């Protein structure tokens, strides 16, 4: 067997963050060495910590605040093969007025759709569309051959550019898990850098890039941690757990592990990276556990839509039911919240 030094010495894209942290001559080898030098994760300890955070008891005023904030952090999502313009309009209507019976209900952070549905989402939002600003509802598009990511780079970039051109404010890309698992970190890195470049708008601004790690396929917490570092080094604005198409999707220990990376990155560079658990968070209780985990791991500063999101579809209605319960003292039922 010969050692393939040629591919190890292959230079990877000169992403600014990576150059700063890893060093000037970025190669497959230097990147690998850096990622493999990251301290390991003890799975039992991580899960124990996550379940301890899950036992926090959030009551009364804290609960009321948490429920409203959860709504403000939701990327209301529809990602079905059967999506139509009509379905997207209905989703947008729900995003604008989550609870018709209570106008004090805050709006969600974003709607998340497939790339070809972006024009309909933008149109339906009208003046409520954030369009690059921090006020209003963002439009997030999944791209890069979501959910599998099995397409050529050219197709992935075209997918991304299309969505950005159609008015998407945020791009949720998937990493190439095949390349990651076979140790071709440089390839994954280059692809993220390229997609980030494709997020550039005509006016020179960028759509926000969320990098989906698909933690259910990465399988180990060590991999999740390594992929998180990789995604941040390559320029991701957010790291996101899952597509929602693979089980397990977002779990509390996984999110905790990613938050620890984000905390360490902040400690290292002062820069704030967002985290988005997606898929599998269906109840207010689960969502509150995530808020607690964010607040006690990276700090409350992260509990804003710029730095933390829930990718969810059914979570919103459960939060609305809990809100109604807090307001009226009685549980209503699924008939008292709208289906979108």
């Amino acid at each position: 067997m010969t050692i393939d030094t040629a591919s190890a010495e292959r230079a990877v894209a000169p992403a600014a963050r990576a150059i700063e942290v890893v060093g000037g001559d970025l190669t497959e080898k230097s990147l690998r060495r850096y990622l493999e030098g990251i301290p390991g994760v003890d799975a039992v300890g991580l899960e124990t910590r996550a379940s301890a955070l899950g036992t926090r008891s959030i009551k009364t005023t804290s609960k009321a605040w948490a429920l409203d904030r959860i709504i403000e952090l939701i990327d209301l999502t529809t990602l079905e093969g059967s999506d139509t313009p009509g379905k997207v309009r209905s989703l947008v209507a729900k995003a604008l007025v989550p609870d018709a019976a209570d106008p004090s209900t805050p709006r969600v952070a974003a709607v998340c759709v497939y790339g070809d549905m972006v024009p309909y989402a933008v149109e339906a939002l009208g003046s409520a569309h954030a369009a690059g600003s921090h006020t209003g509802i963002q439009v997030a598009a999944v791209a890069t051959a979501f959910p599998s990511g099995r397409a050529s780079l050219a197709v992935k970039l075209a997918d991304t550019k299309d969505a950005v051109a159609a008015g998407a404010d945020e791009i949720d890309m998937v990493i190439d898990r095949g390349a990651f698992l076979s140790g071709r970190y440089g390839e994954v890195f280059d692809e993220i850098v390229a997609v980030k470049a494709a997020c550039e708008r005509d006016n020179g601004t960028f759509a926000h890039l969320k990098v989906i790690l698909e933690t259910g396929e990465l399988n180990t917490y060590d991999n999740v941690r390594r992929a998180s570092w990789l995604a941040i080094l390559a320029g991701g604005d957010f790291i996101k757990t899952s597509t929602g198409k693979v089980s397990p999707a977002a779990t509390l220990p996984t999110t905790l592990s990613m938050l620890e990376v984000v905390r360490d990155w902040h400690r290292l560079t002062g820069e704030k990276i967002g985290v988005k658990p997606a898929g599998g968070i269906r109840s207010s209780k689960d969502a509150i556990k995530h808020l607690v985990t964010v607040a006690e791991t990276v700090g409350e500063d992260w509990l804003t839509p710029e730095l933390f999101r829930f990718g969810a579809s059914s979570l919103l209605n459960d939060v609305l039911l809990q809100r109604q319960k807090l307001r009226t003292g009685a549980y209503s039922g699924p008939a008292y919240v709208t289906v979108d």
Partner: protein
Amino acid sequence: MTFLNYAPAPESTAILDLRPSYGLFIDGAFVDGHGAPLTTISPATEKPIAEIATADAHDVDLAVAAARRAYDTTWSRMSGADRGKYLFRIARLVQERARELAVAESLDNGKPIKETRDVDVPLVAAWFFYYAGWADKLDYAGLGPSPRSLGVAAQVIPWNFPLLMLAWKIAPALAAGNTVVLKSAESTPLTALLFAEILQQAELPDGVVNILSGAGDTGSLLVNHDDVDKVAFTGSTKVGREIARSTAGTGKKLTLELGGKGANIVFDDAPIDQAIEGIVTGIFFNQGQVCCAGSRLLVQENVHDEVVERLKERLRTLRVGDPLDKNTDVGAINSAAQLKRITELSAVGEDEGADRWSPECALPDAGFWFAPTIFTNVSTSHRIARDEIFGPVLSVLTFRTPDEAITKANNSPYGLSAGIWTDKGSRILAVADKLRAGVVWANTFNRFDPASPFGGYKESGYGREGGRHGLAAYLAPSRADATVRSTVPAVARTQAEPMAAPEPVVETTNEDTK
């Protein structure tokens, strides 16, 4: 608002149905005591909870006589399967009344409800379930066929885990066929008395378990009583030594679970975030009032600064306050006397030149409180690195090589617990093999399981509690089979099984059984 100032989430005390006063539990009934009654208080508020009768010499006589009677007439004659039924019943009743026991324990001891609810009480039930299963399988306890029970066991327990220590003592004693007179700690008598109610509910035959309250003098009367066959003590090394002296030559079998100054060793390749959690669990669990606490942190020098920085950041999120609030991480110190000791030893630490640090935290005015504290720049010669503080105070020391870590960890008169944090499995095994500690945790700390033996080396005591080894403390080989013990030399046994507890030897001297 700030989300992290979670709104109060107090556990209700409405579930408690406490009486204004409690007697002694002797021969299946609550009876008046003849010692001066004591008032048990909540250490978090200093408010009285209940008046508790204490036992004088006469009461101790009555309790031991009741235990003897129950042993002779009922318990020693009952089949193991039937004893097991009672133990299973007790375990289930503990589970049924879990919330009530958890609230009472938090109230009386000052420890946070999340610990009593999630650790203490579930472990109490687990201990009874575990030993219930052993009751009819004593032939497999490692003492040869048909081992025999010892008789009346005198048990004296501490205040740091009042109910759990009770379970550690009573469950194996009863499973093995002994009867019990147990003395609870002076400052935490409450849950033992609620447990006595559970025994009544379980219809345990009268006299099989007798529970006395009182201070050290009551304990002394009990362990020195002529009609006691077995003494089990958990508490300070000082008292343990007195008991060893006074029981020597009496034929009473003795187990001692004493102090500790556990070393928690963090290597540079440790899973850092989990190690930080382990350090916190090691020393701030139960306000550090744990005999096996990881009170000496040994950090590899090249990661010292990072570990300390991360640890300080983590300590800022610890919530100190009302033990009954479900979000409290660190509760009250158990007593004014203990608070005084912690305060004094911490002052000594400063005087000796170590750097003291605590996170900002507001402590309540009433009650006994001590902020989580870490000392850095600690040397092995400092008192805070040698004396058991028994409080939320961590001493941080450094090492450079595994050999140095082992030497420093073993450089203590105690030998109860140790922890190893590394990603390297081979190092865990190599280091654990050389640590002179009864319990070595790898990549975790302060984890307990009824199947796992627990006990100390050196001045941390002798004998084991928990697991199969815990049974040996309450059994003797059958008379016909009494030679079994001497067939394997003690030295060979310990070499073959360095991590295991000592095999049953007659533990009536205070020599290290290893």
